[in-house]
């Protein structure tokens, strides 16, 4: 069904084998974050929810939501996680 993984003796270097490319990607993300928040100065937003009026609300909410999500999920894992054969 599946092919046996084989490691060629000499492999060409791939995109992210070079640490610089990873750093470029991350800098790209930081710049994109900056632009997205800066756009809040320019773009007129219609406010339906009071929190939406806060500057950069969506950025703050997105960041906090993900951190909370991961930290809570990590704690949940301690309670929920079992061995693979738990149900057998």
């Amino acid at each position: 069904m599946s092919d046996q993984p084989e490691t060629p003796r000499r492999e060409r270097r791939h995109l992210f084998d070079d640490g610089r490319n990873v750093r470029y990607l991350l800098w790209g993300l930081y710049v994109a974050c900056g632009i997205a928040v800066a756009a809040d100065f320019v773009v007129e937003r219609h406010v339906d929810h009071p929190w939406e009026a806060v500057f950069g609300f969506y950025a703050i909410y997105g960041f906090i939501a993900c951190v909370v999500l991961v930290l809570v999920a990590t704690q949940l894992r301690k309670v929920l996680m079992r061995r693979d054969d738990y149900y057998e």
Partner: protein
Amino acid sequence: MSPVAPFLIFFAGALLAALTRGRLRAAIMLATPLVGAVNLYALPDDAVMSFALLGRDVILVESDRLARLFGWLFHLATLICVIYSLHMRDRIQHVSVLAYAACALGAAFAGDLLALFLFWEGLALTSVFLILARRTADSLRSAVRYLVIQVLSGMLLLAGIIALFANGNPLDLEPLELVGPGPWLIFLAIGIKCGFPLLHNWITDAYPAATETGGVAMSAFTTKIGILALARLFPGTEILIYIGATMAMFPIFYAVIENDLRRVLAYSMINQLGFMVCGIGLGTELAINGAIAHAFNDVIFKGLLFMSMGAVLFRTGKIGGSELGGLYKSMPKTAVLCIVGAASISAFPLFSGFVSKSMIMVAALEDHHQLVWLALLFASAGVFHHAGIKIPFFAFFAHDSGIRTKEAPRSMLIAMTIAAVVCIFNGVYPWLLYDMLPYPVDYAPYTWAHIVTQCQLLFFSALAFVWLNKRGLYPPELPGINIDAEWVYRRLLPHSARYVRDRLASARLAGGAVRDEFLQAGLGIITRWHGPRGALARDPLGSYALIVLVALFAVVLIFELFLGSR
């Protein structure tokens, strides 16, 4: 030639596929959705086809806008799925994909509850082979659990139909008030199909157990029929708003810590269904449009994600996040296509999720459900986190697992490319999709405010991922499973049954007296509920439903006891 019922062509295709092999079967399978599309195009907008059963007319086909949209969607999904499956020579899977699609089309065009019930059961019976075809002991057990739960859903639907009929209600597919046993039984039956909280584990159990093709097909059909039935029968039912918000929220926590990447997608499926259920509960024209548009997009982008993970499983034989990584080196095209699916489900501008999910969110705000809106916004950030980043990251990037394999087979790549093109097309030009929705669309997805706010949400979610990883706070991928509601029927009930069995066995050794006591107690309980003055004897319907439930639980228990423990 006058058009026929859409499902007939697919059943005919399934039959022919069963009788042929090789290239001929491939040609038949490819032709089926194409011939079906010609037929669907010719089908009049108000076509009605019925047949007489036991002196009643069963309306097998009643075409309207909603049915036609799902009809087109299912034709497209079948075509993609068929192409995806062409690399293999498995008759069982080929036939069941077409028969399964036929049942989905039958359910989409069903004109009354009886026709819906027939295809509802058909969906279960045809799709179970896509799990069995994995041919492992684990998949056999998952398949039986899947079948029992799906048949239970069918039985609840039938019980609900009987209750409606007994009270003199019509059996057409008009909205129901959630009052009395009939509507509640039907609501529960649909709830199982849609993966309501606590009824959701068949999705996370069956999808990862299915074959590569099976996972793709199953993600397309069963749950979307649930959404369609919900939209027809319970639009604007308030409880759905909260059920939907719960569904959008809780699975993302599981998705973050789940190791099996196809199970991550299954949890993500429940999260997306939550948005749709919420939209149907809101019930405004914008919300229903959003739910239906999102169902359409979800079939394609979730299908794309399942296809990319299926390709990884096919090539490496592995699917755990802890075992994978660095696959972009050997499967770069699959990686790029997976990222398109990830961008679509995350609702990036220019990708399909962007134009449909936001309709539901705006509808929630317009309807003053501010807490629900905050929950959905949380879920939006979360979905980017687990489906948008985690799936591609742990499969294709992260640490290099050292696995070197081949790119996915060409047929798989073609199927994924078609799905990716549809994702981008619907994102760039949503108006074709909008034109097919049940209500006229007065919604502009591409405003500067929407683009900026969505970019803020997504970029900062990505920033959180980077920050958590750099600080070492991100939970590593670990082999293992996480207990969920299924614990009740996979652990508690079998263990209790084993305990009782052992006690009975020891009682038998001790002598007949204890056994008689058990029997007396059992008879006492039955007399109390079903005797001349028993509560359940007064209403035959209650007994019927109870018997079905007890019988099905008995099947699960027997299965777990005699097969599950091996």
